């Protein structure tokens, strides 16, 4: 039963990660590869605060989100000053550089990772309580993003993607929008990280390598970039697939790369055969003239 719960929790976490990544690359069109590192920032911040300051999980999670959001500014502010392309390079450098720092810092447990993160809930209820939390977080994230993407703000984002120059020449602050969306997306990844840290109680640097971005890209591209439910489908798919491969009973040394191969191959196939993904973005309801 514990196994089922851990799957549900992972589903919840992955949905938050996929939806927030989709917000950044699918909706806002920002090319960034650094999502795993914000997941890591949330996890490590929450873990370190829980271990050293005995902070309660809610504050620790909020801190994780805040730290992730704040660090996102370190990437977006300098690179968006120049041009959209730079965000990509900066995000790669940031991802790898920060990972180096984490691997070498005593505070974060160095290469061995952060162990013995105190769990707020112990005992037999642990499984379903955390499942509820994770799935609630997933629902909240999806709805929050939906709210951003529809309505006035979403309209501004769409116009920005249609023609950024005309958008800016009308008085709209495109840079500000990009920075905010990026921060929101990264903060959500931080929340996912905190939940992960509190349930699994162990965080290690290997989980956040740049290849982890391949997992997230798969969820978004295969699920459907720019759509609300696409990332949800992508996240569920990504968790179902490894379970399917487990049945092949291959040795672990083959399982991990095989999994990676299947995921990346899926992305490539979808990129060429069905670029809109499994769930195409639903066109938003156009603004209707006010009733007279």
């Amino acid at each position: 039963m514990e196994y089922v719960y851990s799957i549900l929790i992972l589903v919840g976490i992955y949905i938050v990660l996929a939806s927030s990544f989709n917000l950044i690359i699918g909706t806002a069109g920002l090319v960034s590869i650094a999502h795993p590192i914000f997941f890591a920032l949330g996890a490590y911040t929450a873990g370190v605060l829980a271990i050293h300051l005995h902070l309660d999980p809610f504050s620790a999670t909020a801190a994780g989100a805040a730290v992730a959001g704040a660090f996102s500014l370190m990437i977006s502010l300098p690179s968006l000053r120049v041009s959209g392309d730079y965000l990509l390079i900066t995000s790669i450098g940031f991802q790898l550089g920060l990972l180096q720092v984490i691997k070498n810092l005593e505070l974060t447990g160095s290469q061995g990772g952060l162990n013995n993160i105190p769990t707020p809930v112990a005992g037999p209820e642990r499984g379903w309580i955390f499942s509820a939390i994770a799935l609630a977080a997933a629902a909240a994230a999806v709805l929050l993003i939906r709210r951003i993407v529809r309505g006035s703000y979403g309209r501004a984002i769409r116009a920005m993607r249609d023609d950024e120059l005309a958008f800016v020449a009308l008085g709209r602050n495109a840079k500000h929008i990009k920075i905010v969306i990026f921060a929101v997306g990264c903060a959500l990844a931080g929340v996912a990280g905190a939940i992960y840290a509190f349930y699994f109680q162990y965080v290690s640097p290997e989980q956040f390598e740049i290849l982890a971005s391949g997992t997230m890209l798969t969820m978004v591209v295969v699920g459907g970039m720019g759509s609300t439910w696409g990332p949800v489908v992508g996240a569920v798919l990504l968790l179902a697939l490894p379970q399917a491969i487990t049945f092949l009973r291959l040795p672990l040394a083959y399982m991990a790369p095989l999994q990676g191969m299947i995921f990346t191959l899926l992305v490539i196939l979808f990129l060429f055969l069905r670029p809109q993904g499994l769930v195409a973005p639903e066109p938003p309801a156009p603004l209707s003239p006010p009733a007279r």
Partner: protein
Amino acid sequence: MLDPAVLVQIFWTGLATSSYMVLFTIAFALVLKVLKLWNFAQAGMMAIAFYAMYAAVNQFHWPTAAAVAFGLAMTLAATLAFEVLGLRTLRARRSSSLLFFIFTLVCSEFTAYTLTLIFGTEPAPLFPEILSPTRMVAGIAVSNWDLLAVGLTAALCAALALYLRTTRDGQFMLAVSDSAELAALYGINARRTYAVTFAIASVFVCAGMYLYGSRTATIPTAPLQLMLFAVIATLLGGMGSVLGGALAAVFLSLLQSYSVLVIPSQWQGLILYVFLFVTILFFPTGMHPMTLLRRALR
């Protein structure tokens, strides 16, 4: 007190080590210049080059020359397939830069996973023996590998410079890099030029991986890190300047080598990223001393 002999030794060894970085950077910068593409699939190219040569040497037991030729052939085949089947389709669809980015990165990741499946994660050098015979020259240790590295890199750079300046295809590459539409008006076939660019990049990648692999035990995910160095050097040298990128690669390598004197080795890797940040913040179009040096050398 710093011993001048140590400083010179670090310089020489650092210069030799910069050789493969220079080659990777030139490959990356050239593709960026001509195709306006950030070719994150280069890591995949590098991995294929290494493991093809590795298999030829250690599994088929071929002589070195044949192994290198095999490595080059495999890299060329994979790269051209990538360009013809992949990039051309995306270009025809006028795909966004996001899709190009995802495609190139995922190709590298797919390659890394596939090679991990085939070769495992045990670090392995190209040849069983990675130590190269060394002799002392004026108090500095100079190994055969050092000489090969510096010589091969210099030769390839000279060849490329000559190629770009004197041959028709080379001139076409420069024209297309300036403006593909304008070049098309003059009858220059952009597709062919792109293919030629990738072929040259393959050669540089193969040479670089030969040098790197004959000295370091490699794993399938190593090329991603190496490629990042090339990306930073390309940025530093000014996008659109292959020479700038090469100079930046040498500079960064020497910086990393000398940094050993001042910071603990575990933090050495971080220097690169600090530099990346400094570049993006203050020199987004490339570092000015590089621009000056480039102009001076023209």
